[in-house]
């Protein structure tokens, strides 16, 4: 019974894995189809590498869905694979109809994927799929372009024997185009061949095509590996050798480029009809011009920034307009025209929000590109260190502003590396602790409202809280007497004085430079938080706004001054009840539903020297689990703000993130909430 249940869980886990991988494949295909359409518009021909990548995707999807009994999906992928195979083998020409069929196939496969596990719903799709397959078959029925015999190329048997059918086709196609065929040899240390190999492949791709990369025994014992790169290029041998910085004996000529050949190279080149796309004399595909297949454009992100800035400025003008409208509406003399203006202003607000949404949407990119990098790094680390660590990634489709995604790479990489290097124990230690030999690092991303949460969890040794505390006392960060809760101590790892010390990092299981991680994330308007259980592992959570371009803020006032507080770090606002106020050791606290909430007067924080107001509000700020109540005189409503950096002495004031303009034309400072909360945490006022 238990065994059956276990098997069933394993089966459903495998199915979930299948669905997520199939989704990834479909996403990749969508991308590739977009690129394909673009490359057609750009150069008028289908990029063979993209077509081949699409073929591989369809092929994988066919195998995977077949393995999971998804017959209809597998059949559809099979037909799609057929089209792509004909295209990549030069047996058919890409046309608008084929692009349409691709598009439908991916959409339908995605729909079928959603229905996996729901047989009735899947049956409903079967007919639509069968219809599409019928149309694909019609397309595939078109007569094949004839293929000539392969040309003579002077290549060693070992190379020819290992070429796939597709690689052979590319070889012939390149010969037909009159390109030279060369064999480039490169030898590397086996422990680190990848970078060198990719470098030379990249250099070849700049001037031609890598047809095949064949690893060969080096001849030398042990640590080296040799690669033979079958290369096609328009360049004469000497130029190519120079471009690739090759030693004279590292390249052999299999066939000279056309025109350079000692004998007439065109004589044994196959019929041009083999290459309809490339050759101008080949008949154009009937009536299907490639002019408008793609409807995508590439845009420089800076142009989007400008656009976003303009939208932000418009939003500010809009709130100015709103204030005037309200004033007019309240004045009996102008109330009618005022009310009309209020209405117009409301419509304007809605349209502006839509505009803002559209511009933001364009800036969004999935986190996948960052996560792919993490996967590569962990794979490399795993091989270098011989540690058994699995990286699990979820939520790679979560989208963030492109600028944030780019800035996120380093801090996230740092956190994952730390988990790998310091948190996950060596196999022997894990086994002794009764843990599975293979450690696990999980990276999970999800969207919460206007924020994105990314957590990095490991099942390693966790942070030794006592060691961190002792170290903090040693460096004078806290005193022996300071009573610190567990989360306060954990938070100390983000302190510069502590986290850059190697000795702590080695023993505490968390590494160097967590302070840098926090400040980098802070600069993006985000927050970092840590949780850890000794012996069980740690979780670092990063919370980021979806975009930096526009931030919704609460405007608060103290005396004549006003400040903007980013809304994403506000947990709630309360009217301050003086009876609940407690003073201990010169600090103010209040009771918030049973928890002590440390308080700060904005007035004191910036030494404004104002009188205590009759009525005050508490703005409860939150960074991770830490809370801080900010006492202000007034809440003046919310606004969309575009945060601008400030220069001069104010820029260095702690607690200030920047400045912004308000609807009434006034400029206010934007509070840096994470710095304010951090100061309170450091002073040990927060308890668990």
């Amino acid at each position, binding site marked *: 019974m238990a065994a059956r249940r276990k098997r069933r869980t394993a089966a459903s886990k495998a199915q979930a894995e299948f669905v997520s991988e199939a989704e990834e494949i479909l996403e990749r295909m969508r991308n590739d189809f977009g690129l394909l359409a673009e490359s057609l518009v750009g150069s008028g021909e289908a990029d063979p590498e993209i077509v081949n990548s699409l073929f591989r995707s369809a092929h994988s999807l066919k195998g995977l869905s077949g*393995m999971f009994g998804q017959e209809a999906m597998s059949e559809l992928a099979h037909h799609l694979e057929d089209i792509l195979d004909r295209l990549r083998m030069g047996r058919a020409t890409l046309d608008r109809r084929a692009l349409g069929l691709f598009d439908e196939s991916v959409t339908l496969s995605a729909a079928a994927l959603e229905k996996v596990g729901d047989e009735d719903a899947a049956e409903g799709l079967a007919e639509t799929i069968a219809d599409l397959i019928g149309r694909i078959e019609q397309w595939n029925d078109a007569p094949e372009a004839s293929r000539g015999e392969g040309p003579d190329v002077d290549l060693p048997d070992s190379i020819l024997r290992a*070429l796939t059918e597709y690689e052979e086709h590319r070889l012939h196609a390149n010969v037909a185009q009159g390109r030279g065929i060369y064999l480039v040899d490169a030898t590397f240390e086996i422990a680190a061949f990848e970078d060198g190999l990719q470098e030379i492949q990249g250099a070849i791709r700049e001037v031609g095509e890598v047809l095949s990369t064949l*690893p060969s025994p080096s001849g030398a014992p042990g640590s080296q590996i040799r690669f033979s790169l079958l290369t096609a290029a328009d360049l004469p041998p000497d130029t190519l050798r120079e471009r690739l910085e090759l030693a004279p004996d590292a390249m052999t000529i299999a066939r000279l480029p056309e025109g350079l050949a000692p004998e007439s190279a065109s004589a044994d080149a196959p019929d041009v009809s083999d290459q309809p796309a490339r050759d101008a004399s080949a008949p154009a595909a009937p009536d299907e011009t490639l002019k408008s297949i793609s409807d995508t454009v590439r845009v420089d992100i800076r142009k989007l920034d400008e656009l976003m800035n303009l939208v932000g400025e418009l939003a500010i003008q809009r709130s100015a307009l709103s204030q005037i409208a309200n004033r007019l509406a309240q004045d009996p003399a102008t109330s009618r025209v005022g009310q009309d203006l209020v209405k117009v202003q409301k419509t304007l607000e809605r349209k502006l929000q839509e505009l803002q949404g559209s511009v933001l949407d364009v800036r969004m990119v999935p986190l996948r590109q960052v996560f792919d990098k993490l996967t590569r790094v962990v794979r490399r680390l795993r091989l270098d260190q011989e540690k058994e660590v699995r990286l699990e990634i979820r939520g790679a489709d979560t989208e963030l502003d492109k600028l944030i995604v780019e800035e996120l790479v380093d801090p996230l990489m740092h956190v994952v590396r730390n988990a790998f290097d310091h948190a996950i124990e060596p196999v022997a230690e894990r086994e002794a602790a009764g843990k599975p030999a293979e450690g696990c690092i999980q990276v999970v991303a999800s969207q919460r409202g206007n924020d994105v949460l990314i957590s990095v969890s490991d099942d390693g040794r966790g942070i030794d809280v006592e060691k961190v505390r002792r170290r903090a006392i040693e460096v004078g960060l806290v005193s022996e007497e300071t009573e610190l809760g567990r989360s306060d101590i954990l938070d100390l790892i983000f302190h510069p004085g502590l986290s850059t010390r190697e000795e702590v990092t080695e023993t505490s299981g968390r590494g160097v430079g967590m302070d840098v991680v926090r400040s980098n994330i802070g600069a993006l308007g985000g927050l970092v938080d840590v949780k850890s259980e000794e012996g069980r592992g740690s979780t670092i959570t990063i919370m980021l706004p979806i975009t930096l371009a526009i931030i919704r803020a609460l405007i608060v006032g103290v005396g004549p001054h006003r400040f903007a507080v980013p809304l994403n770090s506000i947990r709630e606002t309360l009217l301050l009840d003086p009876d609940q106020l407690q003073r201990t050791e010169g600090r103010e606290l209040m009771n918030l539903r049973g928890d002590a909430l440390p308080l700060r007067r904005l007035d004191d924080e910036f030494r404004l020297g104002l009188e205590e107001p009759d009525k005050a509000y508490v703005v409860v700020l939150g960074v991770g689990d830490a809370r801080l109540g900010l006492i202000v005189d007034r809440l003046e409503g919310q606004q969309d703000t575009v945060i601008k950096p400030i220069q001069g002495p104010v820029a260095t004031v702690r607690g200030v993130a920047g400045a912004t303009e308000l609807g009434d034309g006034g400029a206010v400072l934007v509070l840096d909430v994470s710095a304010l909360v951090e100061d309170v945490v450091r002073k040990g006022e927060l308890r668990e």
Partner: protein
Amino acid sequence: MKRILIVEDSGTMRSLIASTLEELGEPVKIDEAENGFEALRLLPRNAYDLILTDINMPDINGLELVSFVKRDERYAGIPLVIVSTEGSERDRDKGLELGADAYMVKPFDPDGMRTLVIDLLGRGARSGDEG
């Protein structure tokens, strides 16, 4: 303990093959390579008793890997199975010509795969005893 290398770019497929082989009836150690490059790095580090590889992979493909393994005297004796989704028959035949010991089509039957693997592991052990 027998050690097996699975070379396959699909994570789901790798887990499926690995879990199939975990039920061989004898304990085996399974290493997974996500692409040909990773396989090339793993090969000199561990002594493998069996290699299973896909054909359609980015960077270096299955045929190139088979050719490498079978031309290097250190690895030529390791039984090698191509596990690939039905595709080009010519590629499959080429794989066998290059020295692959068997060919399995995906979707594969788990029992069939186990029978084949047990057979190949036994064969490898015998030739090892003789040598």
